[in-house]
């Protein structure tokens, strides 16, 4: 159980860190770059969802 709590805590930190960096660097991107990043983020989460779905989660 403690391991899962640590996993959750680590995942939360990773997401927060990536979110902070994205918020800092997004202002240097062009409008097309922002759109491409949005589309790729959506695709990335879709692929991750599909991956976990296939593993039976």
């Amino acid at each position, binding site marked *: 159980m403690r391991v899962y709590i640590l996993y959750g805590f680590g995942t939360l930190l990773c997401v927060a860190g990536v979110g902070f960096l994205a918020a800092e*660097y997004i*202002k*240097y*991107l*062009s409008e*097309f*770059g922002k759109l*491409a*990043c949005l589309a*790729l*983020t959506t*695709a*990335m*989460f879709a*692929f*991750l969802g*599909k*991956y976990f779905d*296939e593993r039976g989660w």
Partner: protein
Amino acid sequence: MVVYTISLTEVNTDQPSSCLVCVIMTYIAMKNRNLYLYLALACFAVILAIFVVDGYMGVYDKLTLTIQEREQVIEPDHWQQRWVKESGFGTSARWGEPIGFKYQIQNRTFFTYSTAVEATIWRGGEKVAQLHREDVIIPSFDEATLNWTVTAKDFGEAGLKAGEYGELTVRVTFGDVERKIILSYYPETPGYPEKVPIPPIPVPAPTR
């Protein structure tokens, strides 16, 4: 060694909306169970690449102010700060002291960039003087440097007494970009009273 034998008839044929790409993707996914994880990682890598490449590409400007012997460099990312965008970059100078401006525009694109750079002085929402105007043509991955100096005659009348200070705005524009520099200036005269010679105090004669 595992040999996968699969025919296209086994792959997702119950759904009539299956396109050829979906069939191929499913086929590859059945052969490689980590395919979607790799695709997610590839998306993440491309996002990082866009952040690096797109963040570097573009047209950037750098301003260097020289007041007395000090140089203040305003880097391109400093203009992106919210408070600098809204209020401008603040600095101060003594009245009459020349202020050197060195303005660099970097063209980090694959095309030639041409624009007109204009520097003006504003006070109270009214244009006081035009400092500089120049048309520049910057080749791909090159930069242009413009220099001009602000002197007291560009400000107009100071009208300041000792201890007071005034403000004006220097606006630098090119294309649809505008940079604001708020310049506070103070008079040359010192803010403390001048020395007055102390009158001689009569020394009382010693009593006997």
